[in-house]
């Protein structure tokens, strides 16, 4: 059973909608019922009659409802399902079947809006790593972003940056079907480290499903420069994990002092970016390399790093 409601529709349109819902039940795969109150699964939003339809739609999507735009216009700059006025049974059935199809494919909604805990977002990383989610919409407050992981690009609207949006406690994540237009096509911004960033920011303190905390991880590629600028610890973690034999999480903690939760975030990001693999055993011989001069003290390295973060004199 799925529930349907509306926002901004005229009394006449509401009456027509109720009648059509009753009529079309036999033509849709699932049972639909019209709901006057509460949070329904699907909300038809009359974008012509509302003063700020965007806010209304954002609120619906923030609680992982499905918003359907209802308008006189036959074009839209978004990827949302839409119905052109006037209401017709055929259009309604077509849109509702699309909703059911998307829900069946697990495309909408993915997460609920209960906060950024491990359980809320860790599963999305599993879907991404399995290749089952390459296109995401992440929404929070006034901001929305479509993330195209296969092409390492994103399109964002609103006041939040991509990094802020990905860690927002109120975020809602929706996976999208790749073949559907996303509505942000003109605004795509390339980001070489997008997979890495998504893996890091959506980590909830746990490794992606098929990784194990006791494993030895070996980094094959350092992160792109844009990520290294966003995540200062990335350089240290990359250096340790790119040793010949890689390193376990415990070894990285011991060597760097970086908390294991940050190391797990980095490993998840590297895993999504296909930059890391598992090593069975330690075969590290670098420490035994002959003729290596004693490295300068750690204090010197820290001083150089500190100097680099300061503005030029």
């Amino acid at each position, binding site marked *: 059973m799925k529930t349907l409601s509306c926002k901004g529709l005229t009394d006449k349109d509401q009456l027509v909608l109720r009648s059509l819902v009753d009529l079309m039940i036999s033509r849709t795969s699932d049972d639909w019922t019209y709901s006057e109150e509460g949070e329904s699964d699907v909300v038809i939003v009359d974008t012509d009659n509302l003063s700020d339809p965007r806010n209304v739609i954002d609120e619906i999507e923030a609680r992982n409802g499905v918003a359907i735009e209802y308008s006189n216009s036959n074009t839209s700059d978004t990827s949302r399902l839409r119905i052109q006025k006037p209401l017709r049974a055929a259009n309604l059935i077509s849109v509702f079947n699309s909703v059911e199809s998307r829900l069946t494919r697990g495309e909408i909604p993915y997460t609920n809006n209960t906060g950024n805990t491990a359980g809320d977002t860790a599963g999305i990383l599993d879907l991404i790593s399995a290749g089952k989610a390459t296109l995401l919409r992440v929404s929070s407050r006034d901001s929305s972003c479509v993330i195209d992981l296969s092409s390492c690009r994103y399109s964002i609207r609103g006041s939040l940056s991509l990094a802020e949006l990905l860690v927002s406690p109120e975020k809602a994540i929706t996976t999208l079907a790749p073949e559907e237009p996303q509505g942000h096509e003109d605004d795509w911004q390339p980001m*070489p480290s997008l997979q890495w960033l998504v893996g890091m920011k959506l980590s909830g303190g746990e490794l992606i499903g098929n990784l194990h905390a006791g494993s030895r991880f070996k*980094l*094959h*590629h*350092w992160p*792109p*420069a844009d990520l*290294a*600028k966003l995540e200062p610890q990335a*350089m*240290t973690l*990359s*250096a*340790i994990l*790119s*040793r*010949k034999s890689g390193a376990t999480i415990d070894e990285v903690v011991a*060597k*760097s002092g970086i908390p294991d939760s940050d190391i797990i975030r980095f490993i998840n990001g590297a895993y999504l970016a296909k930059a890391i693999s598992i090593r069975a055993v330690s075969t590290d011989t*670098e*420490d035994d*390399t002959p*003729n*290596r*001069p004693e*490295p*300068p003290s*750690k204090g*010197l*390295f820290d*001083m*150089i*790093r*500190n*100097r*680099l*973060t300061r503005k*030029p*004199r």
Partner: protein
Amino acid sequence: MPEIKLIITGPPGAGKTTAIEAISETPPVRTDTRTTDDLSSVKDETTVAMDFGEITLESGEKVFLYGTPGQRRFEFMWKILVEGGLGLIILVDCSRPDPIDDLKMYLENFSDFIERTGVVVGITRTSEPDAPELTEFYECLESNDRVFPILDVDIREREDVALLINALVSTLEFSR
């Protein structure tokens, strides 16, 4: 206390002088002369001995940055400049005909120094139409089972030069 010295190398025009200008807190010392060979179509002047810049640490110690001449005919200078160096930055210019071959050549020529110390690779002008992907540069390193940092950088930006040095310092501190 031995000299703290970082070396920047790479083909002519890759941005070695520009990198030192971007990060040095003093005007860099340059040993440029007018180009008279094929390189004259690319740049008016080229480094013949070295470029030199410096950064002062809070302890008062100085980190010296040495840029090598890019042209192979000055390679005798390469061995001289790396003596006592802490680590190496190789700049690779994607507007040149074969940047991967360039990288191989510098890795080979500085292999002894790299083995003793560490290296980071800065890839410049990656927006060139035929620029190789970063993964192609990494594949070039895989044969020796080592992973060096390879970063896409705009060498005119101080932040990007700082990132290369930071990566090199992290490699020196943790990759051994």
